[in-house]
């Protein structure tokens, strides 16, 4: 009997090893390595060993105005797109949760942007927001007459984030809707029937039953969308490249620029470590905060 259980232990270890080894080798180890790299000055020439410089990279980073600008832009992106995706996703989910016709078709259409790659949708949005001949300027100027001249979306620093926000929200509605829909369908029908018997109107039912029971869904969306928002990269990289004059520079594009265009590996690693710690802390805070309000 004992022999059999040791054999099973070996078999289990054998099964888990391929995944575990590659997971530690390609994920955990690089994360640790990133921390170590951030304390070194790297030379492009691989013959010259990296030089330990302590917190030098971080000191430089916290005095780097471009870093703060990138951080500000990233936070703004999260603050605009996360509520946008949650609100629109919830609206669509609530509408779809009724007995409407063609639910499957709608669900499919709303989900389409999610499976489409960021590069492709960024290319399409670059066209939509083109200064001349773009549909957005056409609508604003010639149809709605809101502006008198074409807006230069990508060369005007004050406007450049707008296409990036719009794309972020547009691409995320489908995912947000799907998660809310799953949450809504998990609410037992009897609750609504009981509320109706008690004479509660649609508004009361929504605030007293739907919203409280959707709370776990809200937190899940908040955490996942915040992490996703901080990771914004491709829409910026494709549409503006961080410009004009760094008006759309975000943390990940700035890291990419430092590491892979200037080859400041240590500095790039320091940016990614700050990024990592920041996102991890915020995600954990959101979860803890929610748990407390639930009790």
């Amino acid at each position: 009997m004992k022999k059999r259980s040791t054999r099973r232990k070996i078999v289990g270890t054998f099964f888990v090893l391929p995944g575990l080894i590659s997971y530690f080798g390609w994920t955990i180890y690089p994360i640790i390595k990133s921390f170590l790299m951030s304390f070194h000055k790297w030379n492009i020439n691989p013959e010259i060993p990296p030089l330990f410089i302590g917190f030098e990279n971080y000191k430089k980073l916290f005095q780097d105005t471009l870093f703060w600008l990138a951080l500000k832009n990233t936070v703004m992106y999260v603050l605009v797109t996360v509520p946008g995706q949650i609100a629109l996703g919830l609206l669509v989910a609530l509408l779809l949760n009724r007995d409407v016709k063609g639910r499957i078709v709608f669900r499919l259409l709303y989900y389409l942007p999610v499976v489409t790659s960021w590069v492709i949708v960024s290319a399409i949005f670059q066209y939509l927001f083109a200064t001349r001949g773009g549909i957005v300027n056409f609508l604003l100027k010639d149809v709605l007459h809101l502006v008198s001249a074409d807006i230069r979306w990508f060369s005007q620093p004050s406007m450049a984030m707008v296409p990036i926000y719009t794309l972020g929200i547009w691409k995320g509605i489908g995912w947000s809707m799907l998660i809310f829909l799953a949450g809504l369908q998990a609410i037992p029908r009897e609750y609504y029937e009981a509320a109706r018997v008690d004479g509660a109107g649609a508004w009361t039912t929504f605030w007293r039953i739907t919203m409280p029971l959707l709370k776990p869904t809200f937190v899940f969306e908040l955490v996942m969308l915040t992490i996703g928002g901080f990771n914004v990269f491709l829409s910026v990289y494709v549409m503006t490249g961080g410009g004009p004059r760094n008006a759309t520079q975000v943390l990940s594009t700035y890291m990419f620029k430092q590491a892979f265009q200037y080859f400041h590996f240590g500095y790039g690693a320091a940016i990614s470590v700050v990024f990592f710690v920041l996102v991890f802390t915020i995600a954990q805070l959101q979860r803890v905060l929610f748990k407390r309000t639930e009790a």
Partner: protein
Amino acid sequence: MKMSTKRRINTILSEIILILISFIVMMPVILAITMSLQHPTEVFSYPPKLFPSSFYLGNFPKALQTVNLGRLLLNSLIVAVMITIGKMITGVFAGYAFANFRFKGKRIAFAALFITLFLPAETVMILPLFLIMKKFGWVNTYWALTIPFMASATNTFLMRQHLLTIPKELEEAAMIDGAGPMRYLWRILIPLSLPILAGMSLVNFVYAWNMYLWPLIVTMSDEMKTVQIGVKMLIDAESANNWGIIMAGTLIALAPTLLLFFTVQNLFVKSLVRTGIKG
């Protein structure tokens, strides 16, 4: 009677709002299709057209020539298939081990796995990973494009969750009948998990197909690049902003995902709800 009319009005109103929103959601894709079907002389016409007035197919071959999209599509296919197979194999075995076996360090390993489900790991690991690839001499090869992505915390986690729902008595019965762990996995567990396995591989494939940053960093020559990079190359090449050709290229890159999505959409949506994976 009054109640039902009110409800009917409500439903119709919902329908109208849903159609309006879906029109806005679909608009960019519709415009991309319109654009790709327009003759270069029409592309710059003002006001921009919502629906194509002509059916010009010349943009597609031009897009294929401008950057070598055929080769890039092949690369994307190879990379996506390899990553999917790798992720499925490691995920199924590791999930099986976590669900059905006891071994040393199981709890720590599982905790580490679970945490990474909620981490922005990609941004942090990309720089060291590139240096590792350089050291291995893997830069600009299929190895670098596929091997580092063959483990999947999500697949492992989902597989474990699914296998835990299968009663343990089944395993005991199989073992009494003389089936070993491998046989039990192949003959009993895999057939019982086909829908979830199909859903997982679909999500893995689309993830790998849409990868951009890593292939960009780790490939040097044009023959090794993937189709997503091809789209960006097309944008840069068409500096005169011939949107017709660019949109034709994006549609070519998008076609495989769309085909997959529409043929198995139900499976897709189900597994996405289960995994909560974001695009």
